[in-house]
């Protein structure tokens, strides 16, 4: 084995693997179970006798305040209540944060944000727990909350230190530039709206241990959090998750608290305890995509070529740090979108506000960085009276201008150019540009807009140690394979992709591979399933495990049958040993009788990553994933309503392991991004209470909102130049940013009202936001000067 866990080719000469499952558009492994209602989520697992139900208690009228008194007697006396717990009942450490120790599981002296949990109700039924949770008598001394980014800027309060990248001399570059533009741009946050809300069920075990079913993307962190809160060793806690009903980043750190509370209740009562949040509680209490105030400045020449940028990202992080370090770093890493900035200053402030703590959300800060770059490009194009696509291409990374502001070269810039050129042609961009102009010339109320935007997304966790994975594979003597790995299934098809890889490695049909739930006692010390890296990491670890077992088997068979190792091949549940063919189960049985180990824990660590945050040098990403999107919209300038008429997507997944699943990720990611930029608006009232905490008020896209004409294709890749699993590329997050084209197309439509003026459009582009920009542009006011 090499350092990264890859088997080196000269260890043993093995026949090449035949791909019978890899590259096939197979359905999701649970598709049949999904459609028949038999796929079990945590709330569907049969409850042990005596299971108790939990509800979080919180203050519905307090945003920020000091607790003066808390009377829980009415809660304790309510029907069905078994116990009520507060922070005093926590035997270990009252913290469920990912790293920094600033997320209380239960409030102690202060309420830090609207929705903070103060106590936990344990009752016989869920209904009883919910009712009782509303009966506490709480007196607080209210404090004036800091709600918006602007409030936090004024108060000068952050959760983490400022951070910046600087390249060249942005000050000189800006002064020397022929033209200069500056603007302020607001980007809204986003609620995950996973259909399955946060849930955990904890079953007490012997010797103070606990088994926790948790709907989490990060079982290891849940395990460690539970152990920390209970004051027991990590080894006393096991976390398991077979599948989530959606995650999108919202269950990366945000699942910890509910698992800790369930485990606390279970160990206190000695009974199984289940906590499933209400949809409203879930939306109020858990973190969301960060919203931003972006202050930008760009210097450029008469052609539109950027000379210098100064981009300042002011993020609302909420009351604690959570994952805001990585999220905001990723915003900075993607502030270039696909564009070369000769001189650049990219700054980030991580503002502390008295709101729920913002967290991971598909794209992890990247979308906000990239959208800001697109805004800048649009502004330059509009000012110069040029087509934004021309300005985009003019500023693309290329052979000579290939260094990102953080010093990593863009190695595949030719993919960016080629992919964009292909989409430009297949979407008939220029023909449609002409049609849009003609339409707008004769249509006084409805205005069309068109935009083609690129995606370049860095793949790898920027926190280096997370780029590792483990898998546990057993070959049984009946020829069936047990597959387990540290990645979690949230709908993205990870389990299926890994199973395809393992099935081909052993040359078995998929029905022989038993996919099993992610469990911290099988594969320990894992990272979260996040950063799009699930397949890259876990499929590699699983393949390494399978490969190791196979190598032992081959070695044994080679000796037993007197056959060179490279003449031993596996396919169709059989082993070919030179001219002989025997069933795999026979080979496995024989090897077992010969005392050959048929189980292996595989491991993989992503190579080449060298990022050093302190010096801001090195390579944060193993590679980039690319894509491009062309969107056409129509806007009603009397009401601000908008429809998306056509969208063409072209996306690079390298050599796809499963094209059906990859297309699903691309379409789904695009639509989720589209929702973020159009209808999904989070609204806090003046007091700092979230007003949009249910689907009745928070509007994710519905079926009719997707483009009427929706053309989605995989880019014909030459394969990932890096040695990823089957030369594929990660696909979870990058497609979210394909939706930037929709926002830019809306900008384009509004820009038609007053050529030369940059629409002051903020995200999300709700009808009201569009009307504001329309009114401003008609009054000659723009979003950049």
């Amino acid at each position, binding site marked *: 084995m090499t350092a990264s866990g890859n088997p080196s080719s000269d260890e043993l000469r093995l026949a090449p693997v035949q791909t019978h499952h890899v590259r096939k558009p197979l359905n999701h492994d649970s598709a049949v179970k999904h459609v028949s*209602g038999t796929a079990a989520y945590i709330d569907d697992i049969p409850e042990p006798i005596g299971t108790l139900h939990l509800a979080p208690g919180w203050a519905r009228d307090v945003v920020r305040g000091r607790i003066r008194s808390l009377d829980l007697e009415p809660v304790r006396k309510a029907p069905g209540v078994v116990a009520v717990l507060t922070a005093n009942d926590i035997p270990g450490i009252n913290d469920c944060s990912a790293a920094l120790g600033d997320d209380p599981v239960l409030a102690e002296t202060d309420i830090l944000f609207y929705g903070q949990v103060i106590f936990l109700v344990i009752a016989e039924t869920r209904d009883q727990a*919910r009712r009782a949770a509303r009966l506490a008598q709480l007196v607080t001394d209210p404090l004036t909350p800091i709600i918006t980014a602007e409030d936090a800027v004024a108060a000068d309060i952050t959760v983490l230190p400022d951070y910046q990248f600087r390249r060249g001399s942005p000050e000189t570059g800006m002064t020397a530039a022929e033209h200069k533009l500056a603007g302020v741009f607001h980007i809204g946050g986003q609620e995950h709206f996973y*259909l399955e809300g946060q849930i955990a069920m904890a079953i007490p075990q012997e010797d103070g241990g606990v088994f926790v079913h948790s709907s989490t993307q990060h079982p290891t962190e849940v395990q460690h959090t539970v152990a920390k809160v209970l004051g027991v060793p990590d080894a006393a806690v096991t976390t398991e998750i077979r599948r989530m009903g959606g995650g999108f980043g919202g269950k990366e750190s945000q699942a910890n608290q509910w698992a800790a509370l369930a485990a606390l209740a279970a160990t206190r009562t000695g009974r199984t305890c289940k906590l499933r949040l209400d949809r409203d509680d879930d939306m109020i209490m858990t973190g969301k995509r960060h919203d931003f105030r972006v202050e930008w400045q760009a210097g450029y020449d008469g052609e539109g070529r950027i000379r210098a940028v100064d981009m300042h990202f002011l993020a609302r992080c909420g009351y604690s740090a959570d994952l805001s370090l990585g999220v905001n770093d990723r915003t900075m890493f993607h502030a270039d979108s696909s564009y070369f900035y000769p001189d650049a200053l990219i700054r980030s402030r991580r503002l502390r506000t008295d709101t729920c703590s913002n967290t991971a959300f598909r794209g992890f800060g990247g979308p906000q960085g990239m959208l800001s770059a697109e805004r800048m490009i649009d502004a330059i194009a509009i000012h110069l009276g040029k087509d934004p696509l021309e300005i985009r291409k003019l500023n693309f990374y290329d052979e000579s201008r290939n260094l990102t502001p953080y010093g990593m070269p863009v190695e595949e810039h030719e993919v960016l150019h080629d992919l964009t050129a292909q989409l430009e042609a297949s979407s008939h961009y220029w023909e449609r540009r002409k049609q849009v102009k003609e339409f707008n010339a004769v249509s006084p109320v409805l205005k069309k807009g068109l935009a083609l935007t690129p995606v370049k997304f860095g793949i790898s966790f920027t926190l280096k140690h997370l780029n590792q994975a483990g898998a546990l594979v057993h070959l049984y003597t009946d020829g069936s394979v047990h597959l387990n790995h540290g990645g979690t299934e949230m*709908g993205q*098809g990870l389990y299926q992709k890994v199973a395809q890889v393992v099935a081909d490695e052993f040359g078995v049909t998929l029905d022989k591979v038993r996919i099993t739930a992610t469990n911290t006692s099988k594969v320990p010390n894992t990272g979260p399933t996040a950063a799009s890296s699930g397949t890259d990491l876990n499929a590699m670890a699983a393949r390494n495990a399978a490969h190791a077992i196979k190598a032992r088997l081959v070695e044994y068979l080679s000796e037993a049958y007197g056959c060179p190792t490279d003449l031993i091949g596996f396919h169709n549940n059989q082993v070919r040993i030179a001219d002989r063919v025997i069933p795999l189960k026979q080979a496995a049985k024989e090897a077992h009788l010969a005392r050959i180990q048929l189980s292996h824990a595989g491991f993989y660590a992503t190579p080449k990553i060298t990022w050093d945050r302190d010096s801001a040098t090195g390579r944060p990403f193993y590679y980039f994933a690319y894509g491009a999107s062309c969107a056409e919209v129509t806007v009603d300038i009397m*009401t601000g309503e908008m429809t998306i008429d056509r969208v063409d997507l072209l996306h690079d997944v390298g050599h796809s392991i499963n094209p059906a699943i990859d297309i699903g990720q691309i379409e789904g990611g695009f639509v989720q991004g589209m929702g973020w930029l159009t*209808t999904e608006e989070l609204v806090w009232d003046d007091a700092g209470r979230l007003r949009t905490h249910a689907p009745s008020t928070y509007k994710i896209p519905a*079926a009719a909102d997707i483009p009427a004409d929706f053309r989605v294709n995989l880019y014909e890749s030459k394969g990932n130049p890096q040695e990823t699993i089957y030369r594929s590329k990660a696909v979870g997050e990058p497609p979210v940013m394909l939706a930037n084209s929709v926002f830019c197309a809306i900008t384009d439509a509004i820009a038609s009202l007053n050529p030369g003026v940059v629409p002051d459009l903020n995200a999300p582009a709700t009808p009201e936001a569009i009307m504001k920009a329309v009114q401003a542009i008609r009054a000659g006011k723009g979003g950049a000067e």
Partner: protein
Amino acid sequence: MRDTIRFLKNGEVIELANVGPTDTLLDYLRLDRRETGTKEGCGEGDCGACTVAIGRLVEGRLSYSPVNSCIQLLAMIDGTELVTVEDLTSDGKLHPVQRAMAELNGSQCGFCTPGFVMSLFTLYHAEGMSRSRKAVTEWIAGNLCRCTGYRPIIDAALESCFDAADDAFAWRATETRDKLRQLADSRDIFIGDSSRFLASPASLDGLAALYQQHPDATLVAGATDVGLWITKHLRDLPKVIWLGRIEGMNRIEDTPAGLLIGATVTYQSAEGAIQRLSPDLGELWSRIGSKQVRASGTIGGNIANGSPIGDTPPALIALGTTLELQDTVNSRALALEDYFLDYGKQDRRPGEFVTGLFVPRPDANQIFRCYKISKRFDQDISSVMGAFLFTVIGGTITEARIAYGGMAATPRRAKGAETALINAQLEDPSTWGAAMKALMSDYTPLSDMRASASYRMETARALLAKALMEASGSDPSGLRLRPAFSAPEEPGAPDTLEAAE
């Protein structure tokens, strides 16, 4: 008198005693039956994960509607066939909609999937639908999916839902119809005692008597609003009277003068008649709630409890709708706008209930337009809703009825603008200005999570301008992003969904 509820599931009659007044269908499925295929996503009827199908006899034919089981009272399935996702797979063989969903990658995380499957099951059984993307997206507007982006689900629906039904439910339809007929009775249902009960009278007189005895009881028609009082506000409703079995209360009379709509007529069953009354109103109708909400929700119920989030009242007020109310002794009619007194306050006396409403049909001199503005096109509550009825003689407006929703605490007429429009010329936009200006003093809208006050006012003015532009002959296709029924509609589609019996 009956003290049980009875329904059909998987061919078997199930009879339940001890049904509580606020027991929901979803809790019954998941907690009592431990059938966990049906999921809870939001508990407020907005995401569709809990969708089940309800089979009823409609004019002698078996018809399936999707409903949100989270806000459906268990008692409301009395006399129907309940179909859940567990019932679709027979002998391990997937239903055609399930197969299409699985094969075309219609599921990713799978949590919303059973709800989609059940919505598609009802589409599969809907008669007279022609295959179109619009038919599908309208049908599944009440099912939210966060993973797939819908395209594969739409494809699965297009592939599987538009051929003649050929499944176990179609094969045993005759048998099912017989069983449903046997379940239909005209006995009053009363479960509980005088302090806590679930009642379902079968006649108007029975309702009047019961309600007079218990004026503190909660009247429930479709439970699309009351359901949330239970699941979200955790309100204890000890006495619930469900109106769904009252004979005659679900009548629709489509006359040359207008529509008489009984209080328990669902949005869905009124669709055909409403569409015939006005295509604009028909389009608005298709955007009220979702298929599930329209299958349960009633126009009468929406008006009766004065829900401030109703999208129909402004349109009905503009059309000059009158409301009929009665108690044990008296009945009276009043103009719909006079019923809404203030936010959450209606002109309904103790013991009095809404029996129906009458919507006059616009005459040849009248032009009706209505517009709904919301963040999301489907299944959203309007930020502004504007409805306009202009009486025009020789190009001159002689009378205007204008009503808005979202502009005040109740749906309200724009009296100032109405007056200012009299004698305005359709041909001459300069004569519209006074009305546009008058609107500013007709309303003082509020800001909330749906829109700001200034956007509401701006948009209200824009909608009046649009209505006048359209009335003066401007092509709606240049004025509307999605002109009402510009695409050829599925012939006869809404007619398959006539009032349930």
